[in-house]
C-alpha cells in the first residue's frame, strides 16, 4: 500500500465541487449558456481530479483510524471516544468515481441539449446525485455513510420528479416514504454498533467487534438486519425492487444513468461494509446470497413481462444489481473481484442501452413496444448501439459483460455452489431474450402504419451519438482488456478479504 497517511487535498473536492456547482446552477436557473459552461467545466474538473488524485485519507476530526498493523498513528481521546470520521480514496474509489464523473459529463451534456427550460435546478440535482454516490463509495465511517444514503434517497426523488409525469410523481412519493424505514433502520444499526464497539470508524469497529461475546450476539444480529434493510433499499434489491424499478422507469432515461450509477455504488459500498463487519456471523453470507438470488430471479422474470422498453431496462438494472450482490456476498477474492467488475461493467452497458432508449424517446411516440416500430430505418446507428448494448448485457464475448460474468461463474463454482453459476447463466440468457423482444419490436419490426402528418418528434441531438460512441468504446475496451479494471479492483478485494481494511 503506497497511500499517503495525511490529510489529502483532493478528497474534499469530490464533495465541494458538486455542491458549489449545484448552488451556482440553482442561482443561474435558466440562463442557458452560463449553465452549460458551469456544468461542463465542473464535471470536467471532477474527471481531472479523480485521475490526478493520489491514494490516501481525509480525516474530518483531524485524527486517523487504526493502521492495518493495529497501531495508531495519532490518537486524541475526545471524551473517551475515538471519532475518526474518515474518507478514503483508493483504487476502487478511483475507478468508480472516474466512471461516475464521465457519466455525469455525458448526462449533463445531454440534459443541456434536450431540456428546454429550468435546466439549472435539474442539473444541480444531477450534481448532487453524483455527490451522494461519491460520499458513499469513499466513506469509512458510519455517520457519513448514513448521511450519504439519506441525502441520496431524497435527491433521487427530486430527479424523478423532474419529468412531471403522474407515474414519476407517484414513484417519488413511494420512494421517499420508504426512506423513513431504511434511514431509521440504518440509524439504529449504527447506534447499536457504536454502543457495542465504541467507534464511529468502520475499520476501528471491525477490530473492536466482540464477535465471541455470546451476550452481545443478538444485538449484532439486529444491527445486521437493519443494515441489510437499508442495503436493500439503497441498492433496490428484492422486496423493495418495485419502487426502485418505478424510479428507474419513470425518470428521464439519461437521468436513469446517474440514478443507476448511484445505486450501484451504494450497493457496492454498503455491501462491502456488511461483509467486513458481519461476514463472520453465521448465516450472514447465506442471507446476502438469498437476497441476491431472489433479486436476480424476480428482476429478470419481471423484465420479460414489460411492454415498455424503459421498464424492461428498469427491471434489468434491478436484476443485474443482483449479479453484483452475488459476487460481493460470496466473500471470496474472486467473487468480490467479479462483483465489483460486474458493477463497473453494468454501469457502462446499461448506460449504452439507456442512451439508446433516450434516442427512441426523442422520436416522439414514447418507448412502448406496442406503438413504436421501424426506428432502425430512421436511425440505423441507434439500432447498432442498442444491439451492442444488448450483447454486452447478455454476456457475449467481445464486450465487457462477458468478462465479469465469467469471473462470477468461476467464483460460484469454486465456492461449491454450481446452482449459482446456473442462475447467472440463466440471467444472462433471459436478459438477451427480454432485450431482444424490445429491440426487435422497436427497431426491426416494419413500421406498421406511418400515417402522413404524424408527429415525427425532435431530431436526436448529435451529442447523444458522441456519448454513445464513447461508451461503446469503453465497453469494448473492458471486454478486450479486462485487466485494465481488474488491476484496480484486485487490491480492493484482497484488502477486504485478508485484512479488514478499507477496500
Amino acid at each position, binding site marked *: 500500500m503506497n497511500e499517503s497517511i495525511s490529510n489529502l487535498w483532493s478528497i474534499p473536492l469530490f464533495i465541494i465541487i458538486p455542491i458549489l456547482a449545484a448552488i451556482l446552477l440553482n442561482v443561474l436557473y435558466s440562463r442557458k449558456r452560463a449553465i452549460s459552461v458551469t456544468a461542463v467545466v465542473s464535471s470536467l474538473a471532477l474527471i481531472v481530479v479523480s485521475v490526478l488524485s493520489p491514494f490516501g485519507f481525509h480525516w474530518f476530526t483531524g485524527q486517523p483510524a487504526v493502521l492495518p498493523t493495529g497501531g495508531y498513528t495519532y490518537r486524541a*481521546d475526545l*471524551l*473517551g*471516544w475515538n471519532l475518526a470520521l474518515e474518507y478514503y480514496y483508493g483504487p476502487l474509489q478511483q475507478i468508480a468515481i472516474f466512471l461516475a464523473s464521465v457519466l455525469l459529463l455525458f448526462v449533463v451534456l445531454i440534459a443541456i441539449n434536450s431540456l428546454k427550460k429550468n435546466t439549472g435546478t435539474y442539473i444541480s440535482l444531477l450534481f448532487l446525485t453524483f455527490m451522494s454516490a461519491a460520499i458513499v463509495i469513499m466513506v469509512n465511517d458510519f*455517520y457519513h455513510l*448514513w*448521511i450519504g444514503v*439519506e441525502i441520496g434517497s*431524497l435527491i433521487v*426523488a*427530486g430527479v424523478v*420528479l423532474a419529468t412531471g409525469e*403522474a*407515474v414519476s*410523481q*407517484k414513484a*417519488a*412519493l*413511494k420512494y*421517499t*416514504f420508504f*426512506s*423513513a*424505514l431504511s*434511514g*431509521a433502520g440504518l*440509524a*439504529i444499526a*449504527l*447506534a*447499536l454498533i*457504536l*454502543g457495542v464497539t465504541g467507534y*464511529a470508524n468502520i475499520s476501528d469497529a471491525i477490530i473492536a467487534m466482540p464477535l465471541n461475546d455470546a451476550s452481545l450476539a443478538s444485538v449484532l444480529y439486529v444491527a445486521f438486519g437493519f443494515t441489510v434493510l437499508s442495503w436493500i433499499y439503497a441498492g433496490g434489491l428484492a422486496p423493495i425492487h*418495485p419502487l426502485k424499478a418505478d424510479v428507474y*422507469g419513470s425518470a428521464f432515461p439519461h437521468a436513469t444513468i446517474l440514478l443507476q450509477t448511484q445505486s450501484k455504488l451504494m450497493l457496492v459500498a454498503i455491501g462491502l461494509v456488511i461483509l467486513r463487519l458481519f461476514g463472520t456471523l453465521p448465516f450472514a453470507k447465506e442471507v446476502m446470497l438469498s437476497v441476491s438470488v431472489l433479486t436476480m430471479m424476480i428482476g429478470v422474470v419481471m423484465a420479460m413481462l414489460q*411492454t*415498455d422498453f424503459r*421498464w424492461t431496462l428498469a427491471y434489468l438494472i434491478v436484476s443485474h444489481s443482483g449479479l453484483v450482490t452475488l459476487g460481493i456476498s460470496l466473500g471470496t477474492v474472486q467473487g468480490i473481484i467479479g462483483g465489483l467488475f460486474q458493477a463497473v461493467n453494468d454501469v457502462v452497458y446499461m448506460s449504452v442501452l439507456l442512451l439508446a432508449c433516450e434516442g427512441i424517446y426523442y422520436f416522439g411516440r*414514447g418507448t*412502448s413496444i406496442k406503438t413504436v416500430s421501424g426506428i432502425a430505418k430512421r436511425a440505423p446507428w441507434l439500432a447498432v448501439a442498442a444491439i451492442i448494448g444488448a450483447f454486452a448485457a447478455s454476456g457475449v464475448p467481445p464486450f465487457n459483460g462477458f468478462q465479469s460474468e465469467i469471473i462470477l461463474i468461476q467464483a460460484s463454482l469454486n465456492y461449491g455452489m454450481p446452482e449459482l453459476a446456473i442462475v447467472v447463466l440463466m440471467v444472462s440468457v433471459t436478459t438477451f431474450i427480454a432485450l431482444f423482444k424490445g429491440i426487435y419490436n422497436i427497431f426491426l419490426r416494419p413500421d406498421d402504419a406511418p400515417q402522413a402528418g404524424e408527429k415525427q418528434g425532435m431530431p436526436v441531438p448529435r451529442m447523444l451519438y458522441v456519448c454513445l460512441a464513447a461508451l461503446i468504446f469503453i465497453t469494448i475496451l473492458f471486454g478486450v482488456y479486462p485487466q485494465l479494471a481488474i488491476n484496480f479492483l484486485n487490491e480492493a478485494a484482497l484488502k477486504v478479504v485478508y485484512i479488514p481494511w478499507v477496500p
Partner: protein
Amino acid sequence: MIELNLQFLSFMAAAVLVVIGLGGMLFLDNLIKKIIAFTLLSDGVNLALVTLGYVEGGIVSILEPGTSGAAFPTNAVLIFGPGIVLTNIVIGVSTTAVLVAVTMVLYQRYGTLKASKVLKGERK
C-alpha cells in the same frame, strides 16, 4: 421483574411510537395521515436512540466550566445518540417537506388524498 425505571419507560414509549407509526403508514388511507405517521415513526426512532445512550444518574454531556475533567468521561451520558438524533431531526423535517410537496402536486392532479386512488400502481 422488570424495574420500571426511566430508561425502560422511554423504550416502551419509543416502541409504541414505532408500532403506531408503522401501523399508520400501513393501514391509513389518507396521504397526510401517512405523513403524520411517518413523523411519529421518526420520533420513535429518535427517542430510542437517545434512550440507548442514557446513563442512570449520569450528567449531561456538555463540558461546563465547573465540571471536573477526570470524572466527565465515566459519568456523562453517551454522546452518540444525541449526535445522530440531531441530524435525524433535520433529515426528518426535510423528508416531510418533500413528502408534503409531492402530495400537493398529486392532489392538484387527482383531486383526492386517498392513497388507494392516488397511488394505484398503473403503468403504461
